[in-house]
């Protein structure tokens, strides 16, 4: 084959390169990578300002009701966005319960696109493990956080800066391997 005919191998070479790229991606997806998850652009930026109303009828007094950015300063917290309509939130709840019971960190809840009645009923059924709860019925805060689905959780440091985002349920793996070490680091 003369040298000028080698150029005809170019399309094959391009296809092979593409095959390698696509194969790698396929392996990523089967390994758990979700291409629909939009990476957070808010990492290491301050938590957006919020002043959310609490759930009427929730016991524990004003210290537990309503959520504002002020409340979060001075401590490391886990902000969890959930809804009574959200199936995955039910699946996540036992893990959150365990985290709350462990006392490692306070979990602040944002009731997203919900009514107070529905939220209270859900908490009664599954257990109220939140420290504070704020209502976000029209997604203002959710959008400001770049939330696409529930549940999503944000780890916020003492200065109110977002340090980690979990899209989807917090699993034991994520808790042990990502959140817990980071919390220990941020709490120093």
């Amino acid at each position, binding site marked *: 084959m003369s040298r000028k005919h080698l*150029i005809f191998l170019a399309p094959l070479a391009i296809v092979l390169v593409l095959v390698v790229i696509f194969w790698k991606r396929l392996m990523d997806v089967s390994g758990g990578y979700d291409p*629909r998850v*939009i*990476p*957070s*652009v*808010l990492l290491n930026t301050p938590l957006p300002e919020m002043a959310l109303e609490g759930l009427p009828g929730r016991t524990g007094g004003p210290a537990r009701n309503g959520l504002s950015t002020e409340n979060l300063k001075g401590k490391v917290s886990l902000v969890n966005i959930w809804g009574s309509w959200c199936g995955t939130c039910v699946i996540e709840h036992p893990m959150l319960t365990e985290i709350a019971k462990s006392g490692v960190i306070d979990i602040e809840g944002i009731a997203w*696109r919900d009514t107070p009645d529905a939220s209270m009923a859900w908490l009664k059924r599954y257990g109220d493990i939140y420290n504070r709860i704020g209502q976000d019925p*029209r*997604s*203002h805060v*959710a*959008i*400001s*956080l*770049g*939330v*696409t*689905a529930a549940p999503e959780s944000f780890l916020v440091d003492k200065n109110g800066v977002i340090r980690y985002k979990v899209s989807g349920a917090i699993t034991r793996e994520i808790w042990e391997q990502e959140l817990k070490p980071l919390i220990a680091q941020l709490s120093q």
Partner: protein
Amino acid sequence: MIRTLVAALLFATAAVAVEPSERLADPALEARAREVSKALRCVVCQNETIDESHAEIAKDMRLLVRERIKAGESNDQVISYMVSRYGDFVLLMPRFQSTTVLLWLAPLLLLGTGALFVMRRLKRAGPAAPGLSEDERKELAKLTGGGRP
């Protein structure tokens, strides 16, 4: 008649999810809101604009767009806000910036490379072969048995 009917039905299914209750009173502002909505991707149904998508969050994003426009923000400011929250992916048309230069220029580059190849092949082929001389034509006729092939 049938064709017009079919065409009408096809166009009638143009996707719009904006409900009457969402619309702004001022038609100019509403038109801007629609324009902005059509530039934003629904983050749940990611192949639709928030204008088309029936997802709940799309509706909330539409309302937020209208709120911000009503508050006096420009189209660009509203879009920038969404990008600051969700990243570039929320734009349906990627911006021309350092991370997307290759994306934008790739078609041009590919076309250019192809054109280069074509030109080089044309040049190498050389001038067209000269026609046959009288003698060569006779030779050809002898070899091919006279008649046209």
